[in-house]
């Protein structure tokens, strides 16, 4: 693997002025580079163009901030997201004006839906040309406004450093999210003295950190009265670094716990108290436990429609505690009884403290009965599939990958059936290991996200579980992976269909497979080889393990594995759209 930092030759003259920051005037582009250094940014994902040439020049002349050249701006943002989700540090993106910015929009919207800390810098035409329909001009601030946490247009070089500071501050605090900073070209040439603020305070932005003590006491009262409780935790626990405390909390109470798609890994999947994922393709036991719960503890989760199903039928008997850093997430979709606004980590810490101070514990007999009921639901074995099939079952590929990697790999995925199987069958025991596009559901996310993840974790195994349709949406990034010698393992579960579309057409459109069959697929082995990688095609169940072993042993090569899987396989269980959680289609 090549370190992107080495792509820029050593310059160092920017560092020379470090001592004299008050007197020496820097260009906007130099200020930009200095700000990133001050923020401790080690990697920027981007693509150059006319409006950002000064900035690229300034980055070229220093060696602290590395740059990863992608092949399409959408991929730059997804790669930054992979970096961010796997490290909990902000992802940083740099693209040019016009098409550079519009190409990045899908990635930005994706990061917004999944609350990913990220700062996206876009070039803009010179201030004198703004509004003139200049070459490569778009209203970036206008286009991105509905899908960012906040955005800025910098109109004076004197505002540049403080705006960048604000951008990082906003992106990483409260409920994280992407922040766009649009920088006109003339601003990057203008000069002013450089001063980077040490800290940031904004009168209009004060996210709540600690939970209200009275609410925490009320929550603990309710927890101790519970007879059929469930903990339902989401991506907020992963983002908020609350995984350890969540585990402690869950074990102390001996409550069953389920994770959302975004929350997988926050609680160890191999633990007895874990019920698996909930929601549309959640496990039978998780959804049934939710439906029958009398107390529901939602932590860092937002009651997404893929989780609740029909809200009118959602958790009919439960009193609900909801911990979330974003007050607007509370009682948005489902009315809750005990809202607690605050960061997951300090709130869990306070709840644990309060719990330990009480002598009372939940009714042991009731809990025993509840666990017995849950074990009965578990006995349904809702994730069963035909293990004797002569065709490769996609679930088996993922189970084998899990076994061979010890469940410790970083897994990225695209969107569709393979994503659900990865979520169901790769039991994540650690947070920040599962990197997928949850809210927006962006096909094409997986490969660039794997690039960002691998760059952040050079020695680790990073696998992209994808399908033959999704992978083609950002396939050009195979070239980026070669440039930086990233040994990603791409597992394509190739059933020649947009599998999830096909599944819905089978279930709800009487098998009319409109446009879901992928004709004219490329030969992925040759394609991988054309990009300079290793390609494999695996057609028989007996070859799956051997091929995976061989691929995982190639520590310095990207291996593209084309698994020809059973096209008739469906994802079970399934809660049809609009149904209640307990109304699942089972195999």
């Amino acid at each position, binding site marked *: 693997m090549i370190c992107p930092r080495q792509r820029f030759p050593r310059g160092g003259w920017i560092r020379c002025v470090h001592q004299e920051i008050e007197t020496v005037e820097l260009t906007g582009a130099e200020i930009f580079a200095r700000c990133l250094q001050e923020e401790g940014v080690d990697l920027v994902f981007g693509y150059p163009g006319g409006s950002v040439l000064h900035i690229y020049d300034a980055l070229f002349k220093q060696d602290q901030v590395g740059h990863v050249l992608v092949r399409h701006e959408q991929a730059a943002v997804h790669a930054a997201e992979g970096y961010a989700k796997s490290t909990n540090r902000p992802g940083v993106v740099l693209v040019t004006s016009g098409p550079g910015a519009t190409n990045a929009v899908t990635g930005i919207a994706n990061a917004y839906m999944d609350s990913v800390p990220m700062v996206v810098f876009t070039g803009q035409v010179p201030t004198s040309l703004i509004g003139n329909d200049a070459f490569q001009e778009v209203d970036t*601030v*206008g286009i991105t*406004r*509905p899908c960012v*946490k*906040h*955005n800025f*247009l910098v109109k004076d070089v004197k505002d540049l450093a403080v705006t960048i500071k604000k951008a990082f501050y*906003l992106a990483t605090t409260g409920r994280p999210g992407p922040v766009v900073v649009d920088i006109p070209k003339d601003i990057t040439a203008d000069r002013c003295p450089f001063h980077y603020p040490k800290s940031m305070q*904004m*009168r*209009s*932005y004060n996210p709540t950190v600690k939970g209200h003590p009275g609410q925490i006491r009320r929550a603990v009262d309710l927890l101790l009265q519970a007879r059929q409780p469930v903990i339902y935790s989401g991506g907020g626990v992963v983002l908020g670094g609350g995984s350890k405390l969540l585990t402690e909390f869950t074990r102390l109470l001996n409550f069953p716990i389920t994770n959302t798609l975004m929350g997988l890994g926050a609680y160890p999947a191999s633990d007895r108290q874990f019920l698996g994922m909930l929601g549309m393709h959640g496990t039978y036991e998780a959804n049934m436990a939710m439906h029958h719960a009398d107390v529901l503890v939602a932590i860092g989760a937002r009651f997404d429609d893929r989780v609740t199903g029909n809200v009118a039928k959602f958790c009919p008997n439960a009193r609900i505690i909801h911990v979330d850093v*974003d*007050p*607007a997430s509370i*009682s*948005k979709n489902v*009315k809750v009884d005990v809202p607690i606004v605050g960061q997951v980590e300090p709130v869990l810490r306070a709840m644990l403290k309060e719990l330990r101070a009480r002598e009372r514990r939940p009714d042991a007999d009731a809990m025993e009965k509840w666990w017995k009921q849950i074990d009965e639901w578990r006995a349904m074995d809702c994730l069963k599939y035909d293990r004797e099939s002569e065709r490769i079952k996609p679930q088996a590929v993922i189970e084998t990958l899990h076994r061979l990697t010890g469940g410790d790999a970083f897994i990225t995925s695209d969107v569709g059936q393979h994503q659900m199987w990865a979520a169901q069958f790769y039991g994540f025991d650690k947070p920040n290991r599962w990197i997928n596009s949850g809210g927006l559901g962006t096909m094409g996310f997986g490969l660039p996200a794997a690039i960002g993840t691998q760059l952040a974790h050079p020695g680790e195994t990073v696998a992209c579980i994808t399908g033959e349709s999704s992978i083609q949406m950002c396939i050009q990034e195979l070239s980026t992976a070669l440039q930086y010698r990233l040994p990603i393992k791409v597992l394509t579960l190739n059933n020649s269909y947009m599998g999830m579309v096909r599944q819905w057409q089978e279930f709800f459109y009487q098998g009319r497979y409109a446009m879901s069959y992928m004709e004219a697929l490329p030969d992925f082995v040759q394609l991988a080889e054309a990009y300079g990688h290793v390609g494999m095609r695996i057609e028989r169940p007996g070859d799956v393990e051997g091929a995976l072993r061989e691929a995982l042993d190639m520590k310095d090569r990207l291996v593209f594995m084309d698994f020809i899987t059973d096209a008739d396989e469906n994802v079970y269980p399934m809660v049809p759209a609009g149904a209640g959680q307990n109304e699942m289609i089972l195999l």
Partner: protein
Amino acid sequence: MRHIISILMENESGALSRVAGLFSARGYNIESLTVAPTEDPTLSRLTLVTRGSEEVVEQITKQLNKLVDVVKLLDLTEHRHIEREIAMMKVRVAGGEDRAEVMRMAEIFRGRIIDVSSDTYVVELTGDSAKLDAFIEAMRPFDVVEVVRSGVMGIARGDVALRL
């Protein structure tokens, strides 16, 4: 239910479109919206009138508070308050009879005639929205050329105040 929400926000370009964009993106309705800088030029005060159930209005205020440019807001309808709107109406007054009648109507509604030309009057009227509606309705028999309304602004009575 009708709510009047007053917002103090950073007086920066784009702040208004963030508020307007939030309403269209989330499917909330805006009946009227009025905005101007405050005595502190770094702040703008925006007043908007919206309708929705209690749950919807709660979401609206939460989402507004979430906007980074919004410093503080107050739902005036939760407090005793005064609301005012200003309207200006241009009426064609052909003969002496019309002139007298329009003047009389303006007087009844405590309006003022603020511009006079050979065949038009401009009437200015201040009050809550219902009063303005009533005046416009009452003026229907005349030849009304155009009406302009400012949108609602408001202030809480007594000690309640929207300030930093």
